[in-house]
């Protein structure tokens, strides 16, 4: 008796269709053998399937069973396809044939129940092409069917329910259509949050507002204890609401990293420790890292000057390409990593340079080390540099309470919507991504503005890249004020935020 069941192999976010071939022969010693699996650690899954059959009141055929996976060598164990494999055994044993476009996915527990799967979320790409069929998955599995047109999803709870459906002809209706199967909303934990809770530092707060609005990577420099980390944490709460698509991408990135779904938050805020390994930050071919966890959110590098240069260097291409790319066993693997980078560092190795009341104790060697760590090519990835200072005078003056007059959150929201409406034809959503060819069209300078830019270019010897950065930042500043033209004032502010690489 032979039966073929269709299923999937989901590796990272790549979905490949698999065939499970079951052959039950009455001749030979009763046993189960598995072929087409790399490595071949399948005994546990088979034991589980056998127990699941028994606990579901089904009879596990006491014959020689061959399970063959096609194409061979794509998977290394049966864990994720225990349900399709047992369905194959069921079909072959009872002599029932599944529909030609029926698909099964999921694993079992030994009680015969289906285990809710999270990886099913990646199946929507397969169905976006408009294929028709029936998909059988566990009740409670994640899926979005906004793209799925011809697909009927059946949510089953147990093996016996599946047997009733296929063998005994019991009626199970397909799951109701839902945009988000996972109860997910852009919930705001600190609704109406703003930077006002942090004392002083008006310029840094302003710079962060610009950075969040236009997705400009920002570097905060200043002595310790001036509120850099606090401001970065607040930024996550200030993040503008994303689109539905962003929400799906955030969940997908979280699941890729093996995060429990209840821990996935609306605006990811990742703060890797300075001891982080290259493979944990960037990820490895088998496991994505912090960069992917921060997808559509914030990656905050606190004490950036203490990160090993090697780690920072490997982050460079990730920042540029907005994804992590590997080559794993001949196949390209890519993980999303589109994040806002917030860096915080001291001005020198001892962290006291620039402090009001204390003297920096660094010697020439320390300063050199600092300079190597903050290497120019990494600093080039930042659009905005701001100096954070903490002076007691200021703290008294500015107070810590928000007077409810600050409209920072609304301002950001507005600037984001202006950018989206302008940049949608280019396929980007933030000013930081404006390509070189359209910079002049989008960033139209006023007359004063262009003369100011010329002066700045000749005074500071700005490179083309630096000018590009300044223009995109000034575009965001004028979007925050909702003015179509970039004025001299906007440009002047953007030039102030340019990344300098002076010696300390």
């Amino acid at each position, binding site marked *: 008796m032979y039966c073929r069941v269709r299923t999937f192999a989901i590796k990272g976010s790549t979905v490949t269709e698999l065939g499970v071939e079951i052959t039950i022969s009455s001749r030979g010693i009763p046993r189960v053998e598995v072929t087409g699996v790399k490595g071949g650690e399948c005994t546990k899954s088979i034991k589980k399937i056998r127990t699941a059959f028994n606990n579901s009141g089904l009879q596990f055929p006491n014959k020689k069973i061959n399970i063959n996976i096609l194409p061979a060598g794509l998977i290394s164990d049966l864990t994720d396809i225990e349900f399709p494999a047992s369905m194959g055994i069921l079909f072959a044993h009872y002599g029932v044939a599944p529909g030609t476009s029926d698909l099964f996915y999921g694993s079992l527990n030994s009680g015969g129940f289906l285990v809710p799967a999270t990886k099913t979320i990646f199946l929507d790409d397969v169905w976006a092409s408009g294929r028709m069929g029936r998909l059988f998955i566990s009740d409670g599995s994640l899926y979005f069917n906004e793209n799925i047109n011809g697909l009927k999803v059946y949510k089953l709870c147990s093996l016996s329910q599946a047997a009733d459906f296929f063998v005994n002809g019991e009626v199970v209706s397909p799951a109701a259509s839902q945009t988000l199967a996972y109860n997910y909303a852009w919930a705001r934990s600190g609704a109406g949050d703003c930077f006002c809770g942090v004392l002083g530092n008006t310029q840094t707060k302003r710079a962060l507002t610009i950075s969040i609005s236009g997705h400009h990577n920002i570097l905060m420099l200043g002595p310790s204890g001036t509120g850099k980390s606090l401001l970065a944490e607040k930024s996550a709460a200030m993040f503008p609401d994303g689109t539905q698509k962003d929400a799906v991408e955030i969940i997908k990135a979280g699941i890729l990293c093996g995060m429990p779904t209840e821990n996935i938050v609306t605006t990811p805020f990742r703060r890797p420790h300075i001891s982080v390994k290259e493979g944990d930050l960037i990820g490895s071919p088998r496991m994505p890292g912090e960069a992917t966890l921060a997808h559509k959110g914030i990656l905050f590098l606190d004490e950036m000057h203490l990160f090993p240069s090697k780690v920072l260097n490997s982050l460079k291409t990730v920042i540029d390409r907005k994804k992590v790319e590997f080559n794993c066993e001949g196949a390209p693997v890519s993980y999303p990593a589109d994040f806002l980078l917030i860096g915080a560092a001291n001005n020198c190795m001892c962290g006291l340079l620039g402090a009001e009341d204390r003297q920096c104790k660094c010697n020439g060697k320390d300063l*050199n080390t600092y300079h190597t760590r903050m290497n120019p090519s990494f600093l080039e990835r930042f659009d905005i540099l701001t100096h954070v200072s903490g002076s007691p005078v200021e703290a008294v003056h500015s107070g810590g309470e928000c007077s409810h007059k600050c409209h920072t959150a609304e301002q950001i929201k507005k600037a984001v919507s202006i950018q989206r409406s302008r940049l949608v034809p280019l396929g980007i959503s933030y000013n930081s991504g404006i390509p070189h060819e359209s910079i002049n069209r989008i960033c139209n300078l006023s007359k004063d503005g262009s003369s100011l830019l010329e002066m700045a270019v000749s005074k500071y010897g700005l490179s083309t890249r630096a000018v590009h950065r300044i223009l995109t930042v000034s575009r965001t500043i004028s979007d925050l004020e909702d003015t179509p033209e970039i004025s001299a004032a906007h440009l002047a502010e953007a030039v102030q935020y340019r990344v300098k690489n002076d010696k*300390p």
Partner: protein
Amino acid sequence: MNNAVFTHQVGFPKCAGSVKGLPKELHIRGILPENLDKLGIGIVGSRRISPYGIRVLRELFYFLKDTGLAVISGFTVGTDSYAHEFALSAGCTTVAVMPCGCDIIHPSSNKELYKRILGGGGAVVSEFEDGFMPQKWTYPKRNRIIAALSKVVLVVEASSKSGSMITADFAKKYGRKLFSVPGDIYTERSSGTNKLLSGGAEVYLSPTRILDEMGVTSTQKASGSVRDSGSTAGETDLLYILKEKGMNFNELGIKTGISTGRLNEILMKMLLKNLIFEKNGVYYVL
């Protein structure tokens, strides 16, 4: 380009030749300006220069612009590097005296400066053979050459036990005019300069005395007028505040009450006009 010059040869710096105890040969890269005994001004100071020290140097070099003087310093980080940098941007020739062979760029972070000194018609000088690595004992030797080559020596900032003090001692010994910049009596990096003042060095209060001593007159206008000319109302206020003490953006915002955006604009324009400069987020008057 590297050539050794011996005491008896033409081209050996005049003042250096007249001082006992100096090396018999000097290795020179680039062109060593003639008449260093008339034009040489040695500038030394701490490796850790403070904004105060930078301000002193900036003001001095503002007036030294196009005077044709030659600035001699020690090429290390801090005051020496600033002196060379400012000299180059003020159009002065500058001479770097190395504690090692002329071909060794020490510290290596000053690679660019090294090229610019030679490109700007200046020279790199050392008493050591090419390939000689810097040692602890070569620094005082280097210092005595700085003193010997200069007509006037200015100590900007120095702690009481620093290389700058050794240079100052040599300057006195060789009969060079010594200027010292007074500083805070509680600050370590001013302790040396203040000590020099009590020991008979001339107090540096403005560039005027140095200019007199060197026998040159500056083409630049005096400080008061240059700062007030062409600055708008907001700028004048800021200049007035910054004149006394360098301040960061937030302090300025509170003192003046100007909004963040506007203050950014004013400061940027002042930076472009060269009225102020910014370091680590703190704005200073030039």
